[in-house]
């Protein structure tokens, strides 16, 4: 009884809120529609992961096979390797890649010369706007036997130059480093935005208390942008399992499958190239479930530890 009452009041509260902030809700509307049409409606299609889906027979005409596709995936000889690669690449990317834009923003924040700051910012954004296909074209050309990157590596190690994309050991570092190069400028924008909100009086007060530059960065700047960092981290973890598979598909080849093949690239190969739609979607659904668990866990940890969370 009380429950329904509460619910009712929550709803009328929402109506009230909408009346007060019409413009905000209006701005949000296209996004809500987008998510509904492109992310919620297609979930219906997940039904095919429990079938042996044949396009011409449709969702209801195809043979129902229950969890067969899932058990097939768990028994797949690549299951362990896919899981390992997925976590390994994403963790590397997270541990090395996530702090990069933060450090960059903090460093650039310390620079007084506005003009230099602006130019640096603009230049570092640029790789983000180059199409991924072109980026991967550049990477594979530069890492050929005769490519400059292979040449530099060979000068450092003393071995004759090798095609780096043909060596399984080099794939993950190459992937993560080029990811950082592509994204750190763009990723730092949001931190710049929150840095500009820090009250300058705090810096003055800290300076009067005798805090040096580094101390001020640690005690004033970082706590000020900490909520943003946490939110970004949770979002990042939520994206972890699906991040960047296009780039993997563009760069890998059978010789590097052992270190490069991840769940999402496997879904692409099985589901789209080999037309095993149901199996592909079962693997994809497994991927999404891991994703969901990760984001809920990250949010929970964050709420317990530092009281910032998405919900």
């Amino acid at each position: 009884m009380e429950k329904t009452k509460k619910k009712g009041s929550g709803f009328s509260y929402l109506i009230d809120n909408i009346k007060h902030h019409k413009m905000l809700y209006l701005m949000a509307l296209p996004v809500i529609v987008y998510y509904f049409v492109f992310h919620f409606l297609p979930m219906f299609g997940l039904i095919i992961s429990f079938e042996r889906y044949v396009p011409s027979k449709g969702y209801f005409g195809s043979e129902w096979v229950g969890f067969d596709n899932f058990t097939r995936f768990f028994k797949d000889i690549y299951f362990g390797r896919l899981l390992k690669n997925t976590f390994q690449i994403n963790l590397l990317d997270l541990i090395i890649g996530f702090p990069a834009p933060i450090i960059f923003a903090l460093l650039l924040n310390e620079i007084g010369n506005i003009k230099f700051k602006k130019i640096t910012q603009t230049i570092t954004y640029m790789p983000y706007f180059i199409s991924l296909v072109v980026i991967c074209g550049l990477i594979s050309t530069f890492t050929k036997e005769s490519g400059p990157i292979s040449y530099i590596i060979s000068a450092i190690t003393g071995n004759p130059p090798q095609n780096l994309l043909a060596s399984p050991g080099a794939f993950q570092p190459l992937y993560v480093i080029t990811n950082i190069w592509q994204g750190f400028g763009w990723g730092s924008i949001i931190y710049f935005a929150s840095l500009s909100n820090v009250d300058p009086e705090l810096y003055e007060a800290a300076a009067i208390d005798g805090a040096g530059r580094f101390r001020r960065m640690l005690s004033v700047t970082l706590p000020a942008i900490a909520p943003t960092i946490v939110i970004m981290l949770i979002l990042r973890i939520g994206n972890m399992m699906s991040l960047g598979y296009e780039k993997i598909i563009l760069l890998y080849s059978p010789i590097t499958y052992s270190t490069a093949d991840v769940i999402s690239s496997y879904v692409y190969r099985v589901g789209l190239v080999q037309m095993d739609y149901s199996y592909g979607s079962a693997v994809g659904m497994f991927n999404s479930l891991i994703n969901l668990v990760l984001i809920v866990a990250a949010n929970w940890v964050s709420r317990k530890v530092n009281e910032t969370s998405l919900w």
Partner: protein
Amino acid sequence: MKRGKMKKWASLLCVLLTMVMILSACGGGGSDTGSSSSGDTGSTEDASTGSDESTDAADTGSDESTDAADSGEAGTEGTGGWNVEENTLPIANGDIELTIYIGFAGGARQIYNSMEEQDIIKQMEEETGIKLHFVNPPENDDGTFFTTMIASGDYPDIISDSFASYPGGPTAAMDDGVLLDATELIQSKAYYYYHMMDTMDPEVREKRIWSDDGRITWFGTVFAPEYLDGRVHGGFLVRKDILDKAGITKLPETFEEYEEMFEAFKAEGLTPWSVALKEWQFRDYSPVASAFGLTVRKEFVKDGKVGYSRTAPEYKQFLEIMHNWYEKGYITSDALTQSTSEAQKKFQAGEAGAILCGSWEIITLESVGKANDPNVEVVALPYPRVNEGDPITTQKQFILNPDGRRGFISAKCEHPEEAVRFVDYLYKPETIKMTAWGVNTDEHTLWEEDANGNRQWTEFMTDNPDFDYEIGRQRYTMNSMQGAWDTEMEKLQYDIPQVQQAWSEEAWFDNTSNEGVCSNYMTQTTDEARELSQLQTQVETYGDEMMFKFITGERSLDEFDAFVEELKGMGSERISELQQAAYDRFMAR
């Protein structure tokens, strides 16, 4: 209090949503540029390397040894049913539209927005009275356009594809309701198709166009003229000028002689063998592996028994030689990632000594090479083998029904009879001439005919400052819709000394036989075929990866036995078993 919290919540949500919106908008823009730029690179690549025929011949391969088979029981399923009425034109009166899924050649894309603008298509519409529309996969598509089209459930009327990527192949697609089993329609309406086969060996006809369960699955394919039949269409091509310089006068044939040649190339600072190990040329021509009676990744036949190449003990010898050549630098690490066109570009640029190529590519490879360096001369070699004169037992080489692509009628087609008659119209002798030579219009004259009816290209095609011959053919002729290749036209392309040398006993043809390969025309039942595609994908993906690792030395060859065990565990023996059954049925047809 509560109100304040809710407000915070709502504003946070708004901020997040806006942010996501901005990000996703940017993402969308990015991928747009992505696809368009890939299209651009695609067209240049296609222009420099790609004749449509290269893919045609790629999927070739058939079995020569038909004589052994007993033709007595051949016709039980089908032949009786032929009762063809003449296919008179026009087929319709402009009131019927057909949509066709087919490849759109890169050279034509440069000047036409769609295939409907091409002269040949306009002529076809006029003659048949059918309005044609086209669905084309993007250039350099990896096959996912086709698969998503199939997944959409929305099919064009005629689908030109091999359906090799469809799990279980064309018969499974018929059972699933993707394709129409048009056997009866073909037997009653496909007049020109029937008469074309009449001119061929009847045994050939009965053996090759049927599936084991009595359905016609090779309607709409491209027939090769006798002139191209029974040739070896691919193999090694090397720089003759460098052989001469190094004093190698006898064409290398044994592995030792090959190594001697590679050393000579290396001494000149060239990549000895510029090969693309992940591409079909290496897999299908199967150099080195063929010396041991095997193929690189498929099954082989020995004494009527089908075996799986990668589990045969001789496969280790193939891997040993490849690894040895990799270690010595005859094959470089680029071979693992590059495409065939990249490999061939190195050869054209004078940076490589040897490549694998098809007979249709020889002339381009030499002429581009000569443009860079006038000294360049090319020569084709016999396949490498252990001892001189050893037979090379397996290779996909004999072209009979050259094209894996066929004209399938989709199950959604509303005018199946007209669709069958349209595909049949492509086999009409006049249509074949037209698709091979193009249509002369007011704007351009492509060919001239002398009093005896012999045709020659005009300078517009052979000596045009705006495009080379290959691009010209892609623009003004229609390779993809030919019912058969025109002998006269093909001869112009192949009657040159370089190709004749490659086709001779001295080079690719040297002591080769085709008895060791499984024919492309073997068929399985739908269930078998489904099982087979699933097993093959698994086993081949794993096998490819390990093959590369053995070649580079990432894995030691001591592990070969474990590799074989693993393959067997994954079902390689079941593959041989299924293929054995199909082989036996095929031989008994």
